[in-house]
């Protein structure tokens, strides 16, 4: 049976943990609102870019289309851009990304392909460094926070594009957590190169005969590199909103759990105290009777 003093110490320690987790929950909730807002405001740009690419790609001649759109005809080396968080204490957020990356790498290697990695965010980079560290091209951190700068996404995009042109890889995919709602995130794999084109683009757009300035293929060649940066930017925005949402949920659970623990410990504490009092009374009474 633990002593009263031990129980008291334990209760106090759980109480201070609870204070920390509930503060973290509130901080995450406040930041989430801003991150969610900027993720939503970033969508129009990405959506319109995709629309333009869809309509251009529908018209482009597959044989002369830019390689960023159709790929370079090979499928040997894959580049994965993995977006996780810099900080922990956000439930399964980094875990799912790490697991998904590990599975994807295993799958690609099983097919006899070479895999290269660009890791954004410290957590997954650290947990995979031991097994996959030699495939890292780069591990970046400190990009994500409450606000994601487009310049950071553009510099990653620039590296990806330069690497592709130098023939360092054939296919590029981004792995990130997509923000679905405050309580759920979804691991998403998005192909950057070759660019994803929605074949079922609304036919209404195609019926309009657009004028192009310059010609379609030149325009397509100008748009595709920008699209890479845009897609990376939107992945970063989604991921930071998802991270905060995951942290908020995790900390909410932790706070509630600490509350339950405090209740249980308090009960044990009161029982123990009562038992001690009863025992002392019995001793006094039986002592008095003996006299």
């Amino acid at each position: 049976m633990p002593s009263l003093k031990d129980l008291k110490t334990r209760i106090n320690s759980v109480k201070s943990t609870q204070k920390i987790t509930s503060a973290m929950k509130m901080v995450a909730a406040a930041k989430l609102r801003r991150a969610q807002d900027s993720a939503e405001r970033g969508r129009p740009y990405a959506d319109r870019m995709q629309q333009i690419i869809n309509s251009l790609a529908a018209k482009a001649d597959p044989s002369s289309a830019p390689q960023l759109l159709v790929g370079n005809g090979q499928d040997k080396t894959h580049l994965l851009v993995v977006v996780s968080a810099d900080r922990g204490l956000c439930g399964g957020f980094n875990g799912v990304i790490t697991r998904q990356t590990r599975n994807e790498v295993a799958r690609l290697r099983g097919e006899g392909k070479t895999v290269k990695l660009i890791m954004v965010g410290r957590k997954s980079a650290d947990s995979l460094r031991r097994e996959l560290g030699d495939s890292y091209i780069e591990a970046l951190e400190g990009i994500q926070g409450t606000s994601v700068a487009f310049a950071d996404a553009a510099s990653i995009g620039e590296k990806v594009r330069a690497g592709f042109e130098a023939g360092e890889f054939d296919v590029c995919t981004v792995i990130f957590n997509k923000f679905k709602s405050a309580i759920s995130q979804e691991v998403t794999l998005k192909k950057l190169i070759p660019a994803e084109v929605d074949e079922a683009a609304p036919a209404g757009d195609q019926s309009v005969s657009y004028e192009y300035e310059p010609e379609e293929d030149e325009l397509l060649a100008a748009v595709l590199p920008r699209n890479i940066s845009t897609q990376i930017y939107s992945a970063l925005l989604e991921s930071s909103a998802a991270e905060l949402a995951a942290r908020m949920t995790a900390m909410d659970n932790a706070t509630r759990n600490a509350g339950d623990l405090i209740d249980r410990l308090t009960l044990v504490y009161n029982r123990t105290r009562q038992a001690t009092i009863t025992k002392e009374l019995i001793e006094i009474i039986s002592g008095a009777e003996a006299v």
Partner: protein
Amino acid sequence: MAETTQLELVTPADIMVQKSAEMVVAPGAEGLFGVLPRHAPLLSDLARGIVEVHENGKIANRFMIDGGLADVSGESVTILTERAEDLDKASRDDVKSRADAASGAEADFLNAVLAAL
């Protein structure tokens, strides 16, 4: 009220401008072009330059953009650009200090904005 076209200036972070205009002049990659209502559908690459918004026969707003795309239809002009700056609201000192703090393409753009102010 004259016929108008709907202008949208969209950057990766935000929809910066959303308003109706009588004419929009955009810096196309192959030269400046003006867009009036009922313009034929056009998709154009843009160079770094100034987008002019005309209202009541006068220039109402000027925006510096760092290249991008213009998607023109009969009723609307959508400009997608990575960086944009409102030349009527930007102050010289503010842009100057941001240009000093920034690097690469960003600094380059802000210096161009400074020159246009």
